[in-house]
């Protein structure tokens, strides 16, 4: 929908009359140039260029000598606009009727139905009158042309038409007709059609999943607690289902067409839906949904643990569960509570809290928040408790109910100095302010949340604290529930990771091996992804990430951003698409960190830009190209060996991402202790001067590569020098009369290599520092670089400062 808006906006900016013209044209099934002219004539003051503006715009799906067709989504949107302007609707209908008087009758019928629907005057009787002969014809001889027309025409019709029972019969007849082409094979009626075993599942957030893969393994899906069931659909082309939900005026209906083998996801936002097949069999499909509260008490019962599950008001024998370890608590609760519950209290026995691993607990909380609309951890302990850790790692939809002095004390200690007010109290406002700087943490501190060391022992404080937190929690939950935000691990943690890489359609094997697990890992960990909608890495990442987020029941529009140059066609229309110039800083600012994969030059520039504005960068050297250049590890340039290796790399990447999320520094490009390295080109006659200069550079923390120091062990000295220049952060050329007096010589080759290297690097920082040590004229080849005269006072210091200012050139090594 974003793309439609953007396309309309682009055209409107160029020529507002073209939008009016497109609106009038949206009533027609096909728009010939002649009809376009007639419609344009209805718009006063418009010029013929308006026709061309629309014709050439991206609102048009296809165009040719016979006419053009609008993009279906655009047509639907413009029809809504046309509906709100009845005089324009009438004028357009009259012009279209006039122009299309002699064309195919089905097209005229389709346009007439659309016109009536937009006028709000369509009913089943009228549809039956217009469509019954067509349905009868398709039923009679399986007319392929009419069947094709029906499938196309009615998928984009206004909903008043699509939802009609008459259209359902038309689609049924067409789907059957399209299944078997030979009349002798064609069954008489849908009841005799072969069937396909189809799995239906209503997942979280009311997403209907339909899987009709012919080779689906039933046994896998019927094991344990899975929420699936099966029906047999008539094997038509396409397969079709009618799904409806709600009742009365709120009843909605959708017809779904899909092909065998597809796994189809359809968001319906309903907990109960009714399904009708083409054979007219109806089913009621419900999501396993527990509407009540659950309380979970975990107690140690040597040598095992007892999990008490209380469902609303009763305790059933199977709810008393014994698990062998704390790690099994989560799965036990999940399998017992089911897909979803309203509120879940998790109460670990006090003795357990002294020994429970915070990481396990946090992991449990994250997973449990998938099933509970409200998740409340009851902390009942006087033991030291990592309050800050709990807050900082909290997932959305989770709160702590603190009981016990030690815990209260730990809250004060945790936020001392950061969330205290002038009275030395830690207040809700202070905590919110502290967390307000972070987008990934929700704070459930109520208005009465006031904790101070002096007030810790006052009994009245704690109920206030608890009630306040509870109130806030409920409010937050309700709001989030309305917004459809998932209280689950699939929910967005608020952090965007920029992924940049090769912009060619053909990815190398190394790049391809890394992109998929990385996309899945980022989605699973709750991150958002920012890409630039280039082919290659961006596109693959967007496609896989969107698919994974959808599988997890997350919101793709929220978690995937694509910043596309307006001149591009975004290859994957997923997530939220922002129009932006290719060199814009906007995505770099929106992203909290960047991962570079491969790249053929553009990635290097983009990553360098990111580094300049302070976005932490992780290049994956194994993917080669720019990423190897950026990482400069030099160790693993042979690519990714296999899928297992790719997973290990992704594991390392995700560790880095997690470190960034926690704010561990230094996160940017400069590994501690890595000094910038300079290569020095000089004439041997100037050795003494050069040695004196380099010793001062070394004293200033600069790593100097000097041939006379390095070459003693190098047999292949020429190759070693060339390699050193390529690896150097900077090159110093000591310009002197002695150097220039050598018309030819090895220094020329060194200089040429350095100049070549300089050409390949971004121009935002110098690569070569010419240094003058006598009154030799400047070297012409180096005229673009700023020269330093170390004979003048402060000249050498300026050189040192410049090298330090630009610093280490290579990016942070993975």
């Amino acid at each position: 929908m974003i793309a439609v808006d953007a396309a309309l906006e682009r055209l409107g900016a160029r020529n507002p009359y073209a939008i009016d013209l497109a609106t009038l044209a949206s009533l027609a099934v096909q728009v010939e140039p002649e009809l376009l002219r007639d419609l344009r004539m209805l718009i006063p003051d418009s010029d013929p260029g308006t026709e061309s503006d629309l014709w050439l715009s991206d609102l048009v799906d296809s165009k040719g000598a016979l006419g053009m067709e609008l993009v279906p989504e655009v047509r639907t949107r413009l029809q809504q606009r046309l509906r709100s302007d009845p005089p324009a609707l009438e004028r357009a209908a009259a012009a279209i009727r006039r122009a299309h008087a002699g064309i195919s009758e089905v097209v005229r019928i389709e346009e007439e139905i659309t016109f009536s629907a937009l006028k709000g005057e369509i009913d089943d009787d009228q549809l039956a009158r217009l469509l019954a002969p067509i349905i009868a014809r398709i039923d009679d001889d399986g007319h392929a042309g009419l069947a094709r027309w029906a499938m196309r025409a009615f998928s984009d019709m206004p909903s008043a038409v699509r939802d009609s029972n008459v259209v359902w019969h038309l689609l049924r007849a067409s789907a059957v007709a399209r299944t078997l082409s030979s009349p002798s094979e064609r069954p008489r009626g849908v009841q005799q059609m072969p069937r396909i075993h189809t799995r239906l599942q209503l997942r979280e957030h009311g997403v209907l999943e339909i899987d009709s893969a012919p080779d689906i393994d039933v046994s896998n899906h019927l094991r344990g607690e899975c929420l699936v069931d099966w029906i047999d659909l008539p094997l038509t082309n396409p397969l079709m289902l009618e799904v409806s939900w709600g009742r009365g005026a709120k009843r909605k209906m959708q017809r779904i067409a899909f092909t065998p083998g597809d796994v189809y996801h359809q968001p319906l936002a309903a907990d109960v839906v009714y399904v009708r097949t083409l054979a007219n069999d109806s089913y009621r499909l419900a999501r396993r949904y527990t509407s009540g509260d659950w309380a979970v008490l975990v107690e140690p019962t040597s040598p095992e643990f007892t999990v008490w599950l209380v469902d609303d008001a009763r305790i059933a024998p199977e709810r008393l569960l014994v698990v062998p370890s704390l790690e099994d608590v989560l799965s036990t609760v999940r399998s017992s509570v089911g897909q979803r519950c309203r509120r879940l209290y998790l109460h670990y026995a006090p003795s357990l809290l002294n020994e429970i691993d915070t990481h396990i607990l946090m992991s449990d909380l994250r997973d449990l928040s998938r099933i509970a609309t409200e998740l409340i951890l009851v902390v009942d302990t006087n033991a030291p408790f990592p309050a800050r850790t709990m807050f900082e790692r909290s997932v959305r939809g989770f709160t702590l109910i603190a009981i016990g002095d030690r815990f209260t004390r730990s809250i004060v200690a945790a936020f001392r100095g950061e969330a205290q007010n002038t009275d030395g109290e830690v207040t809700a406002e202070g905590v919110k302010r502290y967390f307000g700087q972070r987008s990934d943490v929700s704070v459930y501190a109520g208005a009465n949340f006031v904790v101070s060391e002096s007030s810790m022992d006052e009994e009245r404080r704690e109920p206030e604290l608890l009630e306040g937190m509870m109130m806030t929690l409920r409010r937050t939950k309700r709001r989030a529930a309305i917004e459809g935000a998932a209280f689950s691990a699939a929910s967005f943690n608020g952090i965007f990771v920029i992924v940049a890489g090769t912009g060619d359609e053909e990815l190398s094997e190394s790049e391809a091996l890394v992109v998929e697990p990385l996309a899945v890992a980022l989605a699973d960990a709750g991150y958002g992804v920012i890409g630039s909608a280039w082919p290659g890495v961006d596109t693959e990442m967007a496609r896989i990430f969107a698919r994974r987020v959808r599988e997890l029941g997350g919101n793709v529009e929220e978690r995937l951003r694509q910043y596309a140059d307006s001149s591009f066609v975004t290859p994957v229309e997923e997530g939220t698409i922002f129009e932006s110039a290719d060199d814009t800083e906007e995505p770099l600012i929106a992203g909290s960190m960047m991962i570079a994969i491969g790249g053929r030059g553009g990635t290097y520039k983009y990553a360098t830009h990111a580094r300049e504005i302070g976005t932490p960068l992780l290049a994956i050297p194994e993917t080669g190209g720019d990423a190897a250049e950026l990482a400069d590890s030099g160790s693993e340039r042979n690519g990714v060996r296999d899928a297992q290796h790719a997973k290990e790399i992704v594991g390392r990447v995700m560790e880095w991402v997690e470190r960034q999320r926690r704010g561990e520094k230094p996160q940017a490009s400069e590994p501690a202790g890595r000094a910038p390295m300079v290569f020095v080109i000089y004439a041997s006659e100037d050795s003494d001067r050069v040695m004196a200069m380099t010793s001062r550079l070394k004293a200033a923390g600069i790593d100097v590569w000097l041939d006379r120091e390095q070459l003693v062990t190098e047999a292949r000295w020429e190759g070693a020098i060339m390699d050193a220049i390529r690896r150097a952060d900077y090159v110093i050329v000591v310009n002197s009369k002695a150097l220039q007096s050598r018309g030819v010589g090895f220094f020329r080759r060194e200089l040429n290599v350095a100049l070549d290297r300089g050409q390949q690097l971004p121009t935002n920082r110098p690569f070569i520092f010419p240094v003058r040590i006598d009154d030799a004229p400047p070297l012409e080849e180096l005229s673009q670089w700023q020269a330093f005269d170390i004979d003048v006072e402060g000249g050498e210091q300026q050189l040192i400062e410049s090298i330090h200012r630009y610093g280490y050139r290579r990016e942070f090594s993975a």
Partner: protein
Amino acid sequence: MERRGVSSQAGDYVRSVRELDPDPQEAAQIAAMLGIVRGARRTAASARRLVPPPRPVIDTPPRTPPDGESETEPAAFAPFLLDPISSARAKSSPPWLSTATPFPIESTRYRAPKLPLEPILAANKVRAILSTLVSMWVGEGGVDLPRMISVMARGEQFTQLHRLRTLTVRRGVQLLIDTAPSMSLFRRDALWLRRELQKVLSESKVGVRVFARCPIFGAGRPADDAWKPFRPPSAGTPILLITDLGIGAERDEKATPKEWNAFIDLTSAAGCPLLALNPYAPHRWPPDLARRITIIPWHRALSVQAARKAARRVRGR
């Protein structure tokens, strides 16, 4: 625990239920008293099953169909996730369908007759506009008597017969039609204009060349397989371009001002007046080109007077 928050009753509740082993109703009351839940809503019979039931059989006796079913709260544990609620295998076609006559086969055939095209220029003015645009001055009018008398008065000998200036279409016109993709929509309009010009000037006086983007890249007759470098017509013959000057084209598909200027210089050197009909509004014309070419809005509102004004800019008063 001496002090309690609301939710901390959960643990106590679990313990009390375990100790007392109450029936479900009593348990509900305890829970309500402890503030865990507001009241019990379900009975033990609603206990969910941990293992899903076997696949429903389609032939299960039908329940109320969806349209008529009264919607209830989603069951806490749906005993069947997918309940067959009706089977309509025996249902026959609805009456409106069973009585319908099949659509006539001949009506299913695709028909795309050529639609009439409303011309861009008003049909009642087009001849006047076109003849105005392509008319050029020639000294072929009546005898210029004042000038002849003046010669005689000076006692000079007549070396030539001085004639008055008159507008003529005798020189004909070279019509240059832009066939770039951005002009594809106007192809039929260009043909129409060509026919109208031929009606005004006669077929032999209208030389038609087609080009794409800018004539400097080459031009040819419509039937030519290959285009040749553009050559202007003989001196004094007007050139009428039908082009959008690249306004509708993508950035890298349009000719640069430099290329257009080269073309303009070529026609200017050949002494050929240059006019261009452009379908876009004047505010979108490239300003650099608008200064060097006389551009005429190719628009229904174009009047004879406006055409005359434009023509004067090219040929002089």
